[in-house]
C-alpha cells in the first residue's frame, strides 16, 4: 500500500510539474512576443533598467541568504514587520510632503494636458479656441456647431458663395450646445456681435449630455472668477463646480486621458516625449476628411440605438440653445439653423423618421418664436461613398456640396426676406 501511495504521489507530482512547466513556457512566450515586437532601443533600455533593479534587489537578498540546497527560506529569512519609531514632526512632514507632491503632479498634468492632449475630439475643442484667440478681424459668417459641421462646412466655399469672410468654429457633439453658446459669447466679447450666425448640428445634438471634461477645455476660468458669464439658468452651480474641477483637478477628472498617456509611456517610455499630432484644420477652421469607413453595419447600430433610446432633449442642450437664442435676440444676430449632412440610407430608416420628426417640429416652433432665427428643416443627404467615419460625417467632396447647398438655401431665404421686406415697405 505504501508503494502504491508513493507511486501515486510521484504521478501526481509529475502531472503538476508538467502543467506548471507548460504554464511558465506559455507565459514566457507571450511575454517576449508581446512587448518586444517593434520596440525602440530607448524603451528596451528603460525596461531593462527596471528589470535590473528588481533583479539586483533579489540577488542582494539571495546573496545574503547564502549558498545551500535549502528547499525553502528559513523562518529567520522571511520578511516581517519592524515597527516604525518616528517622531510626530516626521509624520507631519510626510503628510504635508505627500499633499504637496500630489498637488504638484496635478498641476503638471494640467500644464501637460493643456498643450498635449491625446484625445482627438477634445484636441479639436482646444484648437478651435486657439483659432478664435488668433483671429484678428471679425467675419461676416460665423459657423458654430458639432462635428457634422466641423467636417461638413468649408468656410472658403461659403465665402465664395455668400460673399464676406467666414470661419468654422464647430467642435464636437459632446461639447453640447452650451459650449457653442460659450463660443458665441467669446466671439462677441472679442469682436462684437457677428452679422450672421450659422448653426450646423447633427440630429442628435439635443440628446447630448452635459460633459464637464469637454467644457473644461474652453479657456474660461470656470467657477473661480468674476469673469464667469453663465448664470445658474444656463449651467447650474453644481455643473459649474464640476467644470471647474475638471479644469483644475485633471488628476481625477481627466483620468481617462492620463491613463492613455501613462499606459502608452509604460509600453514605450519614449512615447511620453513624442507630442501628439494636432488635428488637421485649415486656417479658417474646417477639418477635411478623405477616407470612407462608414458601413451598413454602422447604420444598423445607429438604428438600434434610435429604437432603444430615441432622440431625447437633455436639460443641458435646451439650456445651451436658450442661451444662444437670448444672445441672438439681444444683439440682433441673423441666425440660420441647419441639420448637418447625413447618410441618405438613414433618411429612409423608419426609426429615424419616427424619432427625428418631433425634433424638427421643436426647432420649427422655437424658430417661429424668434424673429432672428430661421430653421431650415431640409435634410441634406449623401451616398455611402461620400460618408466619412459615421452617418453624420462627410468626406471633403460631399462637404463642398453640402456647403454650396446651405449657401444656396441662405441666399433663397435672404431673397424671400428682401421681397417680403420690400412688399412691407410698399
Amino acid at each position, binding site marked *: 500500500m505504501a508503494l502504491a*501511495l508513493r507511486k501515486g504521489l510521484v504521478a501526481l507530482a509529475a502531472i503538476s510539474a508538467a502543467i506548471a512547466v507548460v*504554464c511558465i513556457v506559455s507565459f514566457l512566450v*507571450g511575454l517576449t512576443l508581446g512587448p518586444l515586437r517593434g520596440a525602440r532601443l530607448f524603451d528596451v533600455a528603460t525596461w531593462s533598467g527596471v528589470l535590473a533593479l*528588481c533583479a539586483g534587489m533579489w540577488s542582494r537578498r539571495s546573496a545574503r541568504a547564502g549558498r545551500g540546497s535549502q528547499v525553502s527560506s528559513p523562518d529567520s529569512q522571511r520578511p516581517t514587520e519592524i515597527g*516604525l519609531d518616528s517622531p510626530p514632526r516626521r509624520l507631519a512632514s510626510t503628510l504635508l510632503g505627500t499633499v504637496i507632491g*500630489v498637488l504638484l503632479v496635478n498641476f503638471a498634468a494640467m500644464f501637460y494636458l493643456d498643450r498635449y492632449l491625446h484625445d482627438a475630439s477634445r484636441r479639436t475643442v482646444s484648437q478651435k479656441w486657439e483659432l478664435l484667440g488668433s483671429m484678428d478681424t471679425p467675419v461676416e459668417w460665423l459657423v458654430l456647431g458639432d462635428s457634422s459641421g466641423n467636417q461638413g462646412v468649408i468656410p472658403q466655399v461659403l465665402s465664395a458663395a455668400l460673399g464676406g469672410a467666414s470661419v468654422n468654429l464647430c467642435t464636437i457633439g459632446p461639447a453640447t450646445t452650451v459650449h457653442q453658446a460659450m463660443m458665441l459669447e467669446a466671439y462677441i466679447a472679442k469682436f462684437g456681435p457677428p452679422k450672421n450666425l450659422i448653426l450646423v448640428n447633427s440630429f442628435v445634438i439635443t440628446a447630448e449630455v452635459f460633459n464637464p471634461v469637454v467644457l473644461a477645455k474652453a479657456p474660461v476660468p470656470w467657477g473661480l472668477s468674476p469673469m464667469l458669464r453663465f448664470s445658474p439658468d444656463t449651467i447650474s452651480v453644481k455643473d459649474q463646480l464640476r467644470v471647474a474641477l475638471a479644469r483644475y483637478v485633471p488628476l481625477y477628472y481627466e483620468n481617462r486621458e492620463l491613463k492613455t498617456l501613462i499606459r502608452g509611456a509604460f509600453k514605450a517610455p519614449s512615447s511620453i516625449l513624442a507630442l501628439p499630432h494636432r488635428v488637421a484644420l485649415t486656417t479658417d477652421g474646417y477639418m477635411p476628411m478623405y477616407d470612407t469607413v462608414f458601413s451598413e453595419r454602422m447604420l444598423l447600430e445607429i438604428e438600434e440605438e434610435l429604437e432603444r433610446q430615441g432622440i431625447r432633449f437633455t436639460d443641458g442642450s435646451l439650456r445651451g440653445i436658450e442661451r444662444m437664442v437670448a444672445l441672438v435676440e439681444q444683439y440682433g444676430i441673423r441666425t440660420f439653423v441647419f441639420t448637418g449632412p447625413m447618410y441618405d440610407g438613414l433618411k429612409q430608416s423608419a426609426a429615424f423618421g419616427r424619432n427625428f420628426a418631433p425634433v424638427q417640429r421643436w426647432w420649427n416652433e422655437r424658430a417661429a418664436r424668434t424673429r432672428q432665427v430661421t430653421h431650415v428643416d431640409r435634410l441634406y443627404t449623401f451616398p455611402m461613398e461620400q460618408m466619412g467615419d459615421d452617418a453624420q460625417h462627410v468626406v471633403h467632396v460631399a462637404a463642398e456640396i453640402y456647403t454650396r447647398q446651405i449657401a444656396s438655401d441662405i441666399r433663397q431665404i435672404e431673397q424671400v426676406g428682401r421681397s417680403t421686406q420690400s412688399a412691407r415697405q410698399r
Partner: protein
Amino acid sequence: MPFNSATFLVFFSILYPLYLLLRSHGRAQNLLLLVGSYVFYGFFQPAFVALLIVSTMVDYFLASAMGRAESGTVDGARRRKRLVVTSVVFNLAVLGVFKYFNFFAENVAAVLRALGMTADAFTLNVLLPLGISFYTFQKLSYTIDVYRGKVSPTTNPVDLALFVAYFPHVAAGPIERASHFLPQLARARHVTAGQVEAGLFLILWGFFKKVVVADNVALLVNAVFDQPGGQGSVNVAVAVVAFAVQVYGDFSGYTDIARGLSMLLGFDPTLNFKLPYFARSIPEFWKRWHISLSNWLTDYVYTPLTKTTLIPLHWYYKLLVSLLLTFLISGLWHGANWTFVVWGGLHGVYMMCSVTFQAHRRRWVRWLRLDRWPAGHQALQTVFTFALVCVTYIFFRANSLGDATTLCLALIDPSHLTSEGARQALATLLFFGVPVIVIDSYQHSTRDLLSVPKLPGAVRLPVYTALLAGILIFGVTESMQFIYFRF
C-alpha cells in the same frame, strides 16, 4: 460599507476623533469600538447583527462556565470537555446551516438521483452572513484555548464581543487569537506617531493594491473565466497569472487596510501576508499566505489529526493524510463548492509531495549544481512554486468544475499559442503588476514589510505621491467587493 466606499470614509471620520478623545479611557474606547463595529456590520446585513451578538454571548457563557469548572478534578475536566464540545458543535452548526446546508442538500439529492431514487434537494433561501467563516473560527479558537488553558475566560462580555465583531477584521480577517487580542483590550491604547505613519502607509498601499491593481486586473480575469470556452493557451495562462495578481492585490490589499486601521486605533494586529509569491516551496507559501488561517488550521485541525488515534496508520502516513484532510477542510472553508475542495485538495497533494520528496529535491539540487548558484536556484524555486500555485487558482476562480476542466485543457492546447488579445492582456497585466513587483521586491530585499516608510524623504514622498496619484487616476471607482467577503 466596504473600505473602498465613501460611506466608510464618513463612518471612520466620525469614529476616529471620538476614539482619540477617549484615549485615557480604555473601557469607553472598547465600548465605542463595539458600537461602531455593530454599525459597520449592520450596514452590510442588519439582520445578522443579532446572530453575531447571540452567538458571541453563547460562547461567552460557555467559556465562563469552563473557567468556573475545576480543571484538576475528573468531574471538572468532563464538564469542561462537554462545554467545549457544545461550543464546537454550536459554532459549526451555525456555520453549517448558513454556509453549507444548500451545498450538502444538493449533493445528497444528486447522489440519490444517481442511485436511481427520486430526490428533490430541500434548500434554504438564506443569505451568507458576512464574515461568518472568519468570526466563527475566532470564536472557536477562543473557547478551545480556554479549554486548553491557554487563555483565561474574559469576565467582560464587551471585550469578547469586540474581539469577535471588531470592524477592521470582522468581514475578512485576519483571524485574531484571543491570547493576542484580548490583552490589548484590557488597557487603554495610546497611538504613537510611528503607528499612525505605518498605518497610513498600509492603508495607502492596501488601497493601491485593491482599487488600482486588483480591480483593473479583474477585467482580464473575468473575460476568460466567465467565458472559458474557446480560449487559447496563452489567454488562459495570462488570465490565471492575472488572477494570482488579482487575488493577492485584493486580499492582501484588504488586509493591509484592515491592519492599517488597527494601527491607527493603537492595536498591534496579526500579520497575514509575508510576500507569498516569493515563497520557494508550497509549505513556505502557506507560511506567507493567509498566515492567520494557516496557523489556525495547524493548531486546531492538523496537529490534533496527527495525534488522533482515529486514523489507524503509521505516523508518517498519518501525517500525510492529516495534511490532505487539513487542506480539504481549508478548501471547504473558502466556499461551499467542489472547485474549492479541489483547490484545497491540490494544495494538500503538493504538501504531501513536498514532505515525501524533500530529500530527493536536495539530492537533485546538488546533482544539478544549483547550490553553487543561489540566486538562480532561488529564482527557479520561486517561479516553480508560483506556477504550482497558479495551477490551483484555476479551480479557485472557476465558476464550476466543468469550467475549470475546460480551462485546464485549453492551457495545454498548443494550437492557440498567441493572439492579439493575449498580448494586450499581458501588457495590461504587466502594467498593473509592475508597481507590486517593485515594492514587494524591495520589501523582500530588506526583509522588512515596513521598509518603504523607512526610506529617506527624497524617495519616500515621491513613492507616496505616485501611489496616491495612481489611485486617483487608475482607481476603479465602482465599489467592487473584496473577494474574501464571500467567504
